[in-house]
């Protein structure tokens, strides 16, 4: 068994991290699976571990400076039931994993696990969510979409810990979430989609489209979105092929044990089309 520490509070956690690069465990629902061993043996971790389950001060959801602030140890099941949770995030969480896993897993863990198929990231990308990274001496705010660099790769530094997720308040007239996962619960996405739009006086004032599991990181292309603002929905619908072509360049899925690249690509395009046709 490798060395492990269970800090009593954030201060203590930051001191540990300042001294040594620990692997930080929030809910552990990804890490424990990734490091599984023969039953009744300790999991196969090679690096020292820091368990966060006692950091109760990081379990909250509140309004703060026109943003929704979520403590990084808040479990998904709590978010599912909380009135402040943005609707699109709630939709996504409602089909993530199973109730037992949601009871311990966290948004911060899902972000740092940085899976191309992560579902919560769909909503966090769409909502322009940010994470607060703290170390003993520093604090910085980073967009979730910039935090994630590639599969299992983030820009979190060795001595940092995520303390908060901040979600700007937004309002949409249309929000859609579709998860294509093989089955309705306890599934890993083959491809999943979030679309949000604000239509005012028949003009698209805000448009956000996010896809997972079709490239190394999630796809959100603000440059494409902004081209179609201040236009009527039927303009977007009439130029569907142009929109789809623009996205097609970024959709580069792979074959794996859950699906194949042709299906993922076609379905991703279908989902974009279906969403735009509902505006």
């Amino acid at each position, binding site marked *: 068994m490798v060395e492990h520490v269970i800090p009593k509070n954030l201060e203590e956690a930051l001191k540990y991290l300042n001294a040594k690069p620990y692997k930080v465990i929030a809910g552990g629902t990804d890490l424990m699976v990734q490091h599984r061993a023969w039953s009744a043996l300790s999991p196969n971790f090679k690096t020292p571990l820091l368990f966060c389950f006692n950091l109760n001060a990081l379990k909250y959801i509140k309004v703060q400076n026109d943003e929704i602030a979520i403590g990084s140890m808040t479990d998904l099941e709590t978010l599912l039931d909380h009135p402040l949770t943005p609707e699109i995030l709630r939709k996504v969480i409602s089909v993530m994993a199973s109730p037992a896993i949601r009871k311990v897993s966290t948004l911060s863990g899902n972000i740092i696990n940085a899976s191309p198929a992560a579902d919560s990231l769909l909503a966090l990308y769409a909502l322009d969510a940010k994470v607060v990274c703290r170390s003993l001496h520093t604090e910085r705010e980073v967009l979730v979409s910039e935090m994630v660099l590639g599969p299992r790769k983030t820009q979190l530094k060795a001595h940092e810990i995520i303390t908060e997720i901040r979600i700007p308040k937004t309002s949409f007239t249309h929000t859609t979430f579709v998860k294509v996962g093989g089955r309705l619960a306890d599934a890993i996405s083959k*491809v999943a989609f979030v679309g949000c739009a604000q239509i005012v006086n028949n003009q698209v004032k805000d448009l956000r489209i996010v896809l997972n599991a079709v490239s190394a990181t999630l796809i959100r292309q603000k440059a494409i979105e902004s081209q179609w603002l201040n236009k009527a929905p039927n303009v977007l619908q009439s130029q569907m092929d142009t929109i789809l072509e623009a996205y097609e360049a970024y959709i580069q899925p792979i074959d794996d*044990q859950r699906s194949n690249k042709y299906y993922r690509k076609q379905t991703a395009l279908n989902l974009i089309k279906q969403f735009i046709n509902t505006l």
Partner: protein
Amino acid sequence: MSTINRSVPKVDAKDKISGKMLYVSDLHIDGMYYAKTVRSTISKGFIKSITLPELPEEVTVVDYRDIPGKNNVKMIFEDWPVFAEKAISHYGEPIMLVVGPNKAIVQDVVNEIDIQYTLAEPVFDMVNSVVDYHFTKGNPESAFKNAKRTIKYTYETGYQEQAYIEPQGFIGTIEGNKVHLTGSIQAPYYVKNAVVETLACDPSDVRIVQANVGGAFGGKEEFPSLIGCQLAVALKKVKKPIKLIYEREEDMEVTTKRHPAKITMEAAIDENHHISAIKAHVGIDGGAFTGLSSVVLSRAMIAATSAYTIAHLQVDGDVYLTNTVPNGAFRGFGAPQMIFAVEMFMNHIAKDLSKDLHAYRLNHLAKQHDLTTTSGTFRDPILMPQMIEKACEMSDYHHKKTLYERPGSYKGIGMSWFLHGCGFTGSGEAEHIKAKVKLRKDEQDNVHLMIAAVDMGQGAKTTLMKVAAEVLKRPLETIHFDNPDTDQVPDSGPTVASRTAMVVGGLVARAAKQIKDNWVDGKVQTVHESYKQPEYMSWDQATFTGDAYPAYSWGVNVVEVEVDKASYEVTVKNIWSVYDVGKSLDDNIVLGQADGGTAQGVAYGYLEVMRHKDGKIVNKNMTDYVIPTAVDMAKTETVLFDNPFALGPYGAKGAGELTLVGGAPAVATAIEMAINKRIYKIPATPEYLMELIHSDNN
């Protein structure tokens, strides 16, 4: 008529639901050792060298050189080694066990063993036939010669994993010469006979006890013989109690699965548009070793026209070996593959002839006194017309069909009709199994069922105890049925082939009758019964001629689906079923079989995907091998028809497999209607549906 079908609480339910029941991995013996299997990392080749690390004290390596008897797992053919010697035939083939008292140390040794191989070219296609059967009925050649036209299609089915809740495992002890294994098994005497051959010992030196079984679905019919033999060899060498339990991924990678199949059907159509003859070729992928594949092939071939009667038949079949995990027993045993092909073929013929599917199929439905595929006779009444009518009424089939057949509906309703032969194929019961049962009344007038039948969750204990109680007219509480122990009970055969209620239950009823007729209060009384083949049955295994089964159970499944236009995903909305299992011995238990069976059978048709890549199973955990969850499972409605079989206890026939075998074609024909394309293979995944929808020539 008997009211035995009235449900009682299952005798095992309370301990299972409360978590009190112990399974083999819960068992602990002081001082026990743990065994871990070292496996090949190539699909085909030869072992060039094995380099062991310096073994820590108390750690032992067990391999083929330690086998006192035959290095063969006793089944039908001699081709499945207990441990690989030189040749490797599939990825994950067991080479040795590492045994020691400390799991971490055992794991370290396993990690440090270095095995070098000479590689050979693996075969993954169905080309290497090792079993080849054929039979005919009537005169297919002449029917084909006189045909107005012929119609031919090929159908393919994939792997299916049993996905029992509890992985494979045993715990064993040794005292003097006597080896005692307790395991999660369906066939205590299969394990015993295999271990006796491997140890080359006296049968009295092997004792097999069934642990509480957390699901099996056929997966614990023959595979446990392999682990049982390995563990017995280890016990002989190490002389300590040893536990050998598979991890989930190990279990999914290396244990037997449902055979992938490729079935080609050709029909001769006469001037009245009737099918006058069928030629079928059934190819199944046996994996690396033959195992039970020849018997699986037989059952598939005998189901070549399922619930229909076709006058002339030519049925050929092959078991092909490939360098993949050995395939084996799985609820349905060859029938799900065949019934999928038959049902799709009937629909495709009707479509090619522009006939109404329903009417066309009804015209070919089997009737009492018709000849079976093997020229035996359907002796008992067949209630299928009434059952089909009931299913149509429950599901509003005809109305929905009209609605959903409109192009672009993306909704469909599909139906399958099928039968399942009860018990072993042909003369298996009489010549190979020769089932025996023993009942013992103690001084307190409690009656003990001394039988080898296994309750793996399907309700065998409750059902067979009810049969005895009903015959004896005694309270259920006075009947006892412990998990079988080969030192205590005679060989009443494996718990497979939908035979337990009908065959073993029949023997229990006869034995109970003997006790009742000779009842003396407070006296110990013991009676025996053994299987006698019904006198009307005759079977020629060489030509596949005669009565393949003493009785048939019948079924109708209706499945309603919706297909998503954007993701091509299938949502199963409703499942309706009508079954004739002779006489239900407990309605809740049969309905439980029905719900579980349709879940497994329907999911086989559209959801459950298992593939191998270069011989390695890629869907090797319950995340990547998708079976339906409670939220995926559609609402089910099931009706049972009484049609008592004279030789079954209270009229009971088989119920275990029947409920699975028709699921796939029911969902596949529903999907065909929804997307207006033809389906030739299962599982009908969204990926496959996308191809079909975007293809012009289907």
